[in-house]
Structures are given as C-alpha cells and as structure tokens.
C-alpha cells in the first residue's frame, strides 16, 4: 500500500528536494505552501504522515500542530508530525514538541536521516 506524506513548506526548492527523496522510497508526496492550505489538504487527503515547516507565511507550524492535535478528530490527533525548521529562533525544538510534533529536525535536511525518521513511522517493507 502506498503511503502518503504531506509536506507543508513555503520554499519550493526544499519541497522539490524532499519530494525526490521520498518518491525514491516509494512514498506518495503532497505539498502545501502554507499552513491553512495544509490543514485543508490534511482533511481532504488524509495523509499518513506530516512534514511540517515551522516558519510559514500565514499560521506558523506550531499553530498547525496545535490545531491538529486539538481537532477532536482521532485520526488527525494521532497523525505523525515531523517538524522541520531552520531553527532561527530560540527554543524552536522545544516549542515544536510542545505543540504536538513527534520529532524535530533541523535544516539542512539530511536525506538519510529523513528516510530513517519517516521509515520509523511508515515502514516501507509492509
């Protein structure tokens, strides 16, 4: 079964890099350019995992995570979230985890680590 991953990220270059990496491993890739669009896509497409940039043009990644976790919709509340940030502000990692993200990764995104982190939630050998 193909697993779907949504990446909420406003930078097209980062998105392309991650798309290539994940599609190479057989995942289906979806992209949203901002937080609100991302929340809509999550409702519509029901991805299996969310990659979440923190610095977004509308609502930030913390808010996206908080809305998901408090949505009262069981499936969304338990959607695995990997926060990916340029950690430009103090305490980004702590804030991301407190907002409900499961894992924190700093940019630049090391692709081997990304594969391992995603694989931990969505094993490709099923």
């Amino acid at each position, binding site marked *: 079964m193909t697993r779907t991953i949504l990446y909420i990220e406003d930078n097209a270059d980062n998105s392309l*890099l991650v798309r290539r990496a994940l599609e190479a491993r057989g995942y289906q890739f979806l992209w949203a350019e901002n937080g609100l669009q991302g929340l809509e896509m999550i409702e519509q497409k029901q991805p299996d995992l969310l990659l979440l940039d923190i610095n977004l043009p509308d609502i930030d990644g913390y808010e996206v995570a908080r809305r998901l976790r408090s949505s009262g919709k069981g499936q969304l509340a338990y959607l695995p979230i990997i926060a990916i940030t*340029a950690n430009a502000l*103090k305490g980004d*990692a702590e804030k991301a985890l407190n907002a409900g993200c499961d894992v924190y990764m*700093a*940019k*630049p995104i*090391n*692709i*081997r680590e990304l594969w391992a982190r995603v694989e931990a939630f969505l094993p490709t050998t099923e």
Partner: protein
Amino acid sequence: MTYLSHLQCSDCGRHFNASEIQTYCPDCQAPLFACYDLDAARFKLDRDEFRRRLPGMWRWHEFLPVSNPENILTLGEGDAPLLRAPRLGAELNLPNLYVKDEGRNPTGSFKARGLSAAISKAKELGIEKVIIPTAGNAGGAMAAYAARGGLQAYIFMPNNTPNANVEESRIAGATVIQIDGLISEAAGMAGEKARAEGWFDVSTFKEPYRAEGKKIMGYELAEAFEWRLPDVIIYPTGGGTGLVGMWKAFDEMEKLGWLENKTRPRMVAVQAEGCAPVVKAFESGASFCDFWIGATTIASGLRVPKSFADQIILKYLHESQGTAVAVSDDLIIAAQHRLAALEGIFAAPEGAATLAGLEILVEQGWVKPEETIILFNTGTGLKYI
C-alpha cells in the same frame, strides 16, 4: 603544492569540483570531504622529510587544500605541544598518558587550524565575505584569519559566549551579532543571512575545509609516535570536526603507506551531561542524533545540540571500537583543577572534560595501564576567566 583532486560527498560519493565554491552535497545534504591524489603523493613524498620543515600546520601543505602558497593565511597554527602527563598518569596508573595542548594555537584554541585552512581556501576561491555561527572560539579564530586575508567577517554567537571570544572577534574587525539562543539557533540565523546576502557560510561541516585543518592533528600524532598511532584518543565532541578530521588523516596515511601499525586508535567522544546527543545516540545504537533539547553546560564548545556530521561521528566511533562518555560540569571543573595542579596545564572546560571522561573509563576498566592515551585540550582556560 597541494595534491587536492576533488571533493566527495560523505554519503553518496558524488564528486564535486574543488576549484569552485562548494558547501555540502545538494542531494544528500551531507558534508563534503576533500580528496587528494594519494597514489601520486605516495611515490613522491617521504614522510620523514616533513619533520625537517619549519614547524606549523602548513608544513603538511601537500594534504591541505590551497593551490597557490600566496593564499595561505597563517598565524603560526599547528604543532601544538604533545605533553607527557607523568603526575596525572601516576595517579591514574597510566604511564603513557599525554595531553595534546591545542590551547597553544593562535587565538588560544584548536579552531585556528580549521579556520586557517577554510579562510585560506575561501580567499583562493575569491570569497570576500564570510559568516559563521559559533559557540565562541571558532568566531575568534575566523575573525583573526579573515583580518589577515582582508575578508569581511560576520559572526553569530550566543549571548552567553565567553567575553574573550566577543572581544577578540571585534578587535579583529568582525561584525559580531549576539543572539538569545544556542549555537544551533545561531547556525539557523547565520544560514539565513548567508543565503540572503550571498556571504559564504563557514559553519562546521557546511563547507569542506575546516576538517582539513583539523585533520593535521592526526598527522602530527603519527609523526610524534614514529608513525605508530596511539591506542586511545579522547576528544571533546561538539561539532566533531577534529574527531572526523583525524580519522580522515589516518585513512590518508594508511593509503600513503606511512603507518607502522595497522591498529587504529579507539576514538572516545566526550560530551557534557547537559548536552550529550552523541553519547545518547551511541548508547542506543542509533546512526544519527536526536536534537538535544535544553542544552546547558559550562563548556560552551560542547553546547552543540546536534552536529551536522552526527552520522559520520557515530560511524567512526563504531569503526574505531571506541565509545562516548558524558561528564557532569562538576567533574569538568574538578578535572580542570587537577590538570592545572598536577601538570601545569590550564585547560579549557572542553579540554578538561576529556580528563573527566578518562577517569570514568579508568573506573570501567575500558583503558589499560600499558596503553598510550591522548587527551585533547582544545583551548586555553585563560579565555574563560
């Protein structure tokens, strides 16, 4: 003349042109390593000829990345003394205990080696503005070498960085930006600024050449022990450039046919209990580190929540059959006093951490009395007063 041939991704192995400005692999987002034509060097170079040259890191210029000697920016870095530690050794029942005292480098730390190499190469590549995030000593070193080369330096450092690092950077003409955060956050800000302004980011492992300067510590050790490598190297590990660089040096010397023994040193990464991502990953068998939340330690150089080269550090620790040890700040302070009182070496907290780590390894029986053990003191304690 350098034998530098190309750069290579440490992960996928893709080659990159060393005559052009490079950062890290755009596909894997992993560090690049400098590669040399060691087959040619093997036939042309005599290992024993190097000790007849003038002292300093650049006597190994064949294995450093600069092509034109006019671009070499030196302040006399390298050849830091390798001191026997007989009184400390007697207490620990380790008669072959040594301290490599990197605090004797220009700007008072081993960072001088990496920044001499990186800023020299930056000059050669025509770079005019360089930017670095730093826990302290790398900023001071970059400011000094940038001043010497006429490059403009921009330094992002946490606002609790030792004052000496701030002052030495400013007096060398660097622009210092102090931030409310850790080096990881400084790295994020420096990276954004670099992208926005087109400045060259000299962050640890985000360019290929700082590790080249650091690797010369490995050449110096081999030469000092008549081309037989010591049994154990204990290294304070923040970004891990020296640990990775020395392992690379051992690889190169092996390919050059210079080493008398086939056994590599067991590498030990020492971190502070308040920031020990490598130790945690090593102990759990992970191949990469989790970002360390709430990093805190008096050893500012060890406040690195996650190294960009974490996977390489862990790989080399395993390859060397080494280990990773976390020590408390109390143990670091006690070790700093013992190093000074018994051997007259006023070590930086990071350097003192290696002694604290060794004491744990002695208790565990991990080191044996007959082994040759090297502690790396990476900086002078004077900068932390």
